[in-house]
């Protein structure tokens, strides 16, 4: 029977502390030390949270889910399953932030909380798939079956993305085009760019901290399950 103590219990999560400080510093800089955007006013500041959360949630987290899922079916390593599960949960958290901050900005700027724009719709559907993924994991008890099922869903979800994007793009699109990551020079003053960069670093740190915490939890949950299995 493996003792639960072989995974040291983190008393102080330094990574999480650094990430929280970085996020707080980004907020302070974004609110007090970054100039107001001429046309949008203070509403534009939500962009520092919104766009970075979208980057972390949609690209880092769901990208990691897809890669880890594919590798799991190949290598059958439970570490990959735990990484996919952790990334999916963190991804849903960040995507929820995106879906909450988006309407807050959309109401004053677009005049509507929600529009059926390509990016909005894709984000919403990825959120649905992410929630479905978490519910699926909760509904299967046997660990190997749970890992295989969620890996299959993770891969299919990655295949779904271009199709939803194409169909909603054909429908209509309204979302602002990328301002920073575009082929020509970024059309944003240097001070805003720096705040943006800070936000990216802070949110990526927060992502790493969440992911690590969630991964450790999965390790302990598996150990506990194995232990209970042994006792039964």
């Amino acid at each position: 029977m493996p003792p639960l103590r072989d995974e040291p219990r983190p008393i102080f999560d330094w990574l999480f502390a650094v990430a929280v400080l970085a996020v707080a510093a980004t907020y302070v800089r974004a609110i007090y030390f970054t100039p107001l955007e001429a046309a949008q006013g203070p509403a534009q500041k939500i962009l520092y949270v919104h766009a970075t959360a979208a980057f972390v949630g949609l690209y880092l987290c769901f990208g990691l889910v897809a890669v880890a899922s594919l590798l799991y079916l190949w290598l059958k390593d439970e570490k990959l399953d735990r990484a996919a599960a952790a990334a999916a949960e963190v991804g849903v958290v960040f995507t929820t932030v995106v879906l909450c901050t988006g309407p807050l900005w959309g109401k004053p700027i677009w005049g509507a909380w929600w529009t059926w724009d390509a990016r909005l719709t894709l984000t919403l559907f990825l959120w649905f798939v992410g929630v479905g993924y978490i519910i699926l994991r909760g509904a299967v008890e046997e660990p190997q079956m749970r890992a295989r099922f969620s890996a299959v869903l993770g891969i299919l979800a990655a295949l779904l993305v271009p199709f939803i994007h194409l169909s909603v793009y054909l429908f209509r699109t309204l979302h602002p085009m990328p301002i920073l990551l575009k082929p020509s020079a970024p059309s944003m003053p240097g001070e805003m760019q720096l705040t943006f960069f800070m936000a990216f670093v802070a949110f990526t740190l927060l992502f790493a901290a969440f992911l690590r915490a969630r991964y450790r939890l999965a390790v302990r949950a598996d150990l506990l399950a194995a232990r209970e299995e042994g006792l039964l």
Partner: protein
Amino acid sequence: MPADAVVRARPGLLRAALLIAAKDLAIELRTRSAILSALAFTLLAVVIFFFAWDATAVASIDLAPGVLWVIFTFSGLLALNRSFALEQNDRALDALLASPVDRESIFLGKALGNLVFVCLIQACAIPAVALFYNLPLTGVWPALLALTVAAAVGLVSVGTLFSAMATNTRMAELLLPMLALPFFVPVVMPAAQVTARLLAGRPMDEAWPWLRILLAFDLVFLVACTLAFPYTLED
């Protein structure tokens, strides 16, 4: 040919798939439980949807494509739920897995059975919508039937795979819609858009970009789900 030779002959991929589809359809034909409830559900939904809109404000020809394809997904879910639940009784799936057929054949057979089922329901839903919503079907129904088959291939590919997974979970039928519905978006949207253009008598050039998405979805997910299916079974 001696009798034992027939028993030992290992059927090919498609032949085995046809056998499994025929088995599922034979069960359905004898019990008629799912097809009748799915048909009743479809007709009820067609009628109820009509009262959800103000018929004087929205022309029924604008409502019909959406109604038709939304009902298509929900009645499809009824068929898909049944697909693997059928194999749970007396652990029939174990016998199927022990039989000398490839797992890919099991998937294709199940999907083919579901395809026939879903197309049958849609073959009743289209005239029902045409009747209740007063649609001009003359001349467009062959295209509509072809569209139904194209949409159904995508629907049952994803749906059959998720059905196999969902029956093995604690939530069973509740889980299937949650997993499958987001995947039905690139099926329902093109199907509804093409239907709207067909009914309005627009040129096919306008429908082509949508059809391309639907056909690509069919191809990608039929292949991906066939390859993924063995991973959803016990090792």
